């Protein structure tokens, strides 16, 4: 055990480094991932250490990045593609949805496409348009993809390595607003195994805080929001349990249901618009499985049905501790 305190961003870098070291078929490709180390510096130093051959600056064409990565994967490589910002994944949407997601199915398992697509996502950083979006639901609806998002440095380190060894394509959403949040990371933790024996390292949720009165469900950037809300609620005498989903597809329904059966109330928190967002699927599922234990309907705190607004008012758009507490109050007074 060699735990170190580091920001989430550095844990990702460490995870990428470990992946590059472990398997020479692993390569990183994307815009500005080389000398620059990416606009968020997640690949910082990797080209220097592993060479231009392993860390590749591509032409500026997202469909081309994912499409050629698919071809590379078919030839036995394991590409990790970086999409520079959430809002720029859409030119690659066709390749992801009609090709990447379906090749294993189309070929009845004969073709594996072990691709990781890293996407810094979410808001709160004062950015211009297209740089603060949360498009995870737009991928979770498509069978064949795994969609995950770590909330802590340790998970970032473990989950990126699990994603790289996964034989299935993984959309890896990185909470860019939390890149500089620090936490302990055990760099000697083994690469999680995906053989189906233990809990799915890319699918199992985590109880981030135990509680008894209400279940807060979050992932990625809103886990910290939910934890802060739990603090605030504790001060008022309400005990909130916080579930960090880690995975948006699949959803770890048993863990959430287990929690809600105990607490009787559930609030889902994400940055994406609530309309057709992950909270909808969770609310539907939790209600189906906890119909008799729910004291109040599952409530959702998320983005509104507006494009991501201008930076000066983004904090009115984003789920805040206040809004989470407000939802909990409503759930409690139901």
């Amino acid at each position, binding site marked *: 055990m060699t735990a170190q305190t580091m920001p989430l961003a550095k844990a990702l870098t460490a995870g990428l480094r470990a992946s590059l070291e472990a398997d020479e078929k692993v390569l990183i490709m994307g815009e500005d991932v080389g000398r620059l180390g990416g606009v968020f510096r997640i690949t910082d130093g990797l080209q220097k250490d592993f060479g231009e051959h392993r860390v590749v600056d591509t032409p500026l064409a997202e*469909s*081309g990045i994912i499409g050629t990565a698919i*071809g*590379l994967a078919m030839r036995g490589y394991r590409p990790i593609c970086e999409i520079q910002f959430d809002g720029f994944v859409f030119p690659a949407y066709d*390749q992801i949805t009609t090709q990447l997601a379906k090749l294993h199915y189309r070929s009845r398992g*004969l073709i594996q496409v072990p691709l990781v697509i890293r996407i810094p996502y979410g808001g709160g950083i004062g950015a211009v348009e297209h740089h603060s979006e949360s498009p995870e639901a737009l991928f979770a609806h498509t*069978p064949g993809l795994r969609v995950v998002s770590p909330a802590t440095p340790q998970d970032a380190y473990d989950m990126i390595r699990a994603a790289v060894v996964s034989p299935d394509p993984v959309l890896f959403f990185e909470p860019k607003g939390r890149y500089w949040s620090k936490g302990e990371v055990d760099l000697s933790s083994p690469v999680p195994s995906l053989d189906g024996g233990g809990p*799915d390292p890319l*699918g199992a949720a985590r109880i981030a805080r135990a509680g008894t009165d209400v279940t807060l469900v979050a992932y990625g950037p809103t886990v910290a929001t939910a934890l802060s809300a739990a603090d605030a609620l504790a001060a008022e005498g309400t005990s909130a349990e916080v579930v960090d989903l880690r995975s948006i597809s699949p959803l770890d329904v048993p863990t959430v249901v287990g929690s809600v059966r105990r607490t009787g109330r559930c609030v889902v928190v994400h940055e994406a618009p609530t309309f057709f967002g992950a909270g909808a699927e969770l609310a539907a599922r939790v209600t189906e499985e906890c119909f008799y234990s729910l004291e109040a309907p599952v409530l959702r705190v998320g983005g509104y049905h507006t494009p991501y607004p201008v930076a000066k008012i983004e904090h009115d758009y984003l789920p805040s501790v206040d809004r989470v507490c407000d939802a909990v109050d409503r759930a409690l007074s139901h």
Partner: protein
Amino acid sequence: MNPDAPAQAPIPEAAQSAAAEENLVQLVAPDGRRADGPLAAAYRDRVAHLGTDELRAMYRDMVLTRRFDDEATALQRQGELGLYPQGRGQEAAQVGSARALRRQDFVFPSYREHGVMQVRGVDPVDRLRIYRGTEHGGWDPAEHNVHLNTLVLGSQTLHATGYALGVQRDGLVGTGDPERDTAVVTYFGDGASSQGDVNEALVFAAVNNAPVVFFCQNNQWAISEPTSRQTRVPLYQRGQGFGIPGVRVDGNDVLASYAVMTEALERACAGGGPTFVEAYTYRMGAHTTSDDPTRYRERAEEEEWALRDPIDRLAALLRAEDRWDDAWAAEVEAQAEALAERLRADVRAIEDPPPASMFDHVYATPQAQVTAERAWFEAYEHDTAQDEVLDSTVEVAR
């Protein structure tokens, strides 16, 4: 005005087709005689080693491809297939180009490459599973180095480029060993050439000098749209602005298709990078069995192209050069008949997959959502089956 750039607006269409004919690599004229002229001279040597056996093998592949086509069309008409996209007219472009490939080369087809499949040895029944509605794929790409059909126009050109980059990484370009040097070819149509993906593939291939051949079959039509809806200059020029040399070949001339492909493969294998080939040909049939070309094209055009039938042309060459033999031709005919018979029997015998197989292979690893839904489905199926047993028992009892 820049001296390299055309001084005027793009050349009008009429001039274009004249130019097209001019720049067409042709080695065999429609009457079966070896073609003349500087372009023929430049490529002639590439087919000089093809003797009677090789030419006959090409002929056989083309005949079998056509018979496959006809039989699949018939099976569709009989309700045994849901749909079938005919390849008639494109046999030379496909057989000629595919015959230039080596075992280790890898093919990324679109959906009309029946002649390529024939040459690569993909089982004819397997090729029809997709159209019978029992498979989305149908064969093992690794077995014959042929990827599955790609139906989303142009997507496969990026996969081919990426695969070629993998080949390059594997050190299989420019080794000088013809058994090791490996190239990739992707097939796509004149219509698909407009897709952004194809152009991004040209960018990635050119910048990285990838060992990939872009083989564009310009069969004059994209369903109901003539090629003039996709481009106003000949398509073989498309790659030039990306730094990719282009060549236009008579796609109804199997020898020219072969010759041009050997050149492109040599370049790829030697580390010279990608080539853009436009095979100028004609879709003699409908787009698919669902299509009705009388709605959009003239009978006269079809008749004109019928005179350039690629199989007739090769037959004429074989006859003109005394390579034809009636006994051999009868044997080819018998093989075609056997193929047709096999299709008639074996396609009908393809069984429907079990319903629960829809949950197979969504993921390579266990995935909670699929596991849960599959369990639900199987329980539901079981219950329904029991209900039916019950119902029929009730029925019988009545």
